[in-house]
Each structure stands twice: as C-alpha cells, then as structure tokens.
C-alpha cells in the first residue's frame, strides 16, 4: 500500500507540502479531465503550457473523469485515502467532495505568503495590506507567532 497524491492545475509543483505529507513512495498523478478543462474554458495555448509543465514533473498523467481515474488508482494502490493541495477553485473543491464519498481526502495548504493571527477583512485591498505588510516584507513571512 502506498499513498496517492492528486496534483491539480493550481499546484503544479513537486515542492508542495502535500508531497511531504504523503511520503516518498506516494504515487503522484495529474488527471487530464476533458470536462473540467472545457468547463474552465481554457484556450489551446494554456493547455500547451500546462501539459509542457507536467512533462517536466515526475508524475503520471491520466485522461478521464477525475473521480473515476482517482478511484481506480486508489484501488490499484490498495489505499483508501488521497492527498490534495488546497485550492479556492469551487469546481476542484466539488470534485474533492465527490471523492470524499469514496475515500479519505486530506487537503494540504501551501507555504503561506504572510502569517496573520486573524483572518483579515477582505472588503478592500488596503484593509488587508495594513495587516499583512509587516509579514509580507519578511523572508518566509517572518517567524511563526
């Protein structure tokens, strides 16, 4: 049994913390899901850019419905859980919710840009910036408080 990682288009990075969480032996994959890509309405140039990026990564690319592909891979790996990088994209979140009906889903956040004690007011940028500025100007966002 080894772990399964689904890298989606918002996190095409082998340094993402999701890979450390899943461990060295994890199977890392990307799913080329026609329906998803059509829903996002990406042009041809974007798809070339994404595919070219994938080709440089030590991962496997599968074509098909994301939930079906990942379920089959999980069965092959004899695992009942999957690790996914966190994303605000509601279409990807909906796919993760469908996966949850079949396996354990663990979402992992990327390294933060700023470290804040409280969620800032997002009504206007400068309300956020006033709170975030100090941390943003420091290496790795400063020390964890």
């Amino acid at each position, binding site marked *: 049994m080894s772990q399964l990682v689904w890298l989606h288009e918002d996190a095409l990075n082998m340094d993402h913390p999701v890979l450390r969480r899943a461990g060295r032996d994890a199977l890392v994959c990307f799913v080329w899901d026609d329906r998803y890509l059509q829903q996002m309405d990406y042009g041809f140039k974007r798809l070339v850019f994404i595919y070219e990026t994938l080709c440089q990564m030590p991962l496997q690319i599968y074509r098909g419905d994301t939930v079906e592909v990942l379920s089959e891979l999980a069965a092959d790996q004899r695992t009942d859980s999957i690790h996914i990088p966190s994303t*605000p994209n509601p279409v990807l979140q909906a796919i993760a919710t469908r996966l949850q009906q079949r396996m354990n889903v663990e979402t992992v956040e990327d390294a933060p840009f700023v470290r804040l004690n409280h969620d800032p007011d997002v009504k206007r940028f400068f309300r956020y910036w006033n709170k975030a500025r100090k941390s943003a100007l420091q290496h790795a966002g400063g020390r964890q408080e």
Partner: protein
Amino acid sequence: MLNRLKSAFVSRSELVEHVATVADWLEPASPGVFVGGQEAAEERLKQLDPQAYCRSRNFLDGKVTRLSPYIRHGILTLDQVRNTALDKVSKAAQIEKFIQELAWRDYWQRVYYRHPEYIWQDIENYKTGLAADDYADQLPEDIASGSTGVACIDQFIAELLDSGYLHNHARMYVAAYVVHWRRVKWQAGAKWFLHHLLDGDPASNNLSWQWVASTFSNKPYIFNLENVRKYAHPGINTHSAENKVLNASYDELNARLFPIERGAL
C-alpha cells in the same frame, strides 16, 4: 480502464501536436510566448530585478517580471518569489512596491476562498450612474477579433490573442474600454480574458475586472489617450485621428461615458 498519457517528446512541436489530440474540442494554435515547466520558471526567477520592476512597471515596455503564468499554476509560490526578491536587495523597503503586487495576488486568493460567489456576481452596484442591465451581456465581435477601429486597443487585443499575455496596464486599458466605452458587462470581458491569458486566474482576473467596472471599488477606472502616450512605447499607435474616442480630458470623458447620477441633480 486507465488511460495513461505520454509525457516524453522529442521536440516542442511534437508536444504541441499531442496536446491537439487530447484537446480535440479546441482549434489547434501556436503555443504561447511562455515555455511551461519548473526549469523555465526558475530561469525567469533568476532574471528577476525587483528594483527595476519598481521603477518601470507601469510602462508597457517596463521591466515586468513575466512570472505570472508560473505563479498562477503553482509552479512558483508567492513565498518563493518574495524570498528570492528579498535576497537581491539589502532592504525590503527598496522593493516594497513589488512585494505589494505579490500581495495583491494573495489578497485575491483570500477573497476567492472566502467568497467564491464574487467571481461571477457583481459584488456591489456599478458607481457609473448606470444599472447592470444597461450593460450588454455579450462581447461584441469587433472586440473579440481586435477590430474596434481604436488603434491602440486593437494592438493590445492582437497581442493578447497572439501571445496569451498582456502587460497589466494594457489589460486595464482594454477592460475599461470594454466596460465603459462599449458598455459591456465585465463578466463578458473577464470570460474572454480567462480564455486567452496564460496566467488567467478566476480571482485575479475577474476581481480586477470588477475593480475596473466599479462593482468592487469606489469609482470606475478610466484612462485617456494622453495616459496611454505617457506609458506606451513607440510601437503603439497613439495618433489622435486613429484613437478618437480616447482623445479627451478626464472631465470630458466622465461627462460622455457616465450619465449624471440621479442623486446629484
């Protein structure tokens, strides 16, 4: 049955041909001006000059970083880019403007997490004296094809379609032209940009369109020909005769583009 796709190609053109077969719902085209992948991303990061960025970023030929497609797809993280930029200077304050621009992306992502509905819905009313219904739903064909007859706008659109990239200032000009000169809903413009931009992100793109439209800001963003001349390079056609609708003062444009608000009468 698992269908594993190949990931090794002898040339870029072979890769592009392969993408055409796995994206068979799209008309194949030439690749964009950016090469995908970690290696190209790190090469560009090495060339990053955050101080030059701070001096010249508003100019259409300024030293912008062109890191955005890599940041958009997580190939580079904001943390990594900020740390690299800090390593190139002695004081963070020297590159505050650059870090603030990275913070805009962080901010848009936070809004997206908190309010996914903001991506396609008007967050607030337009502050233009007009109602949402006064704006067209569809992007006019002459805009989509870059044949509006406004010379600099057509050049920007041609660049977008051809390269998959556009300088941020040019994006703002085109967005303001679409929403305020042509009275087209920002959603139609945002959808069009997302299709063509290699770095198109639902949060950064759509919320910036809302900012231009004034549905996520306190007033509409507009510009005039004088402003384009200030920031353009010699390759941009800024002749008055070929950019007539932009050639006016801000007072004239405000009067022409926005009806007097009912409350102000």
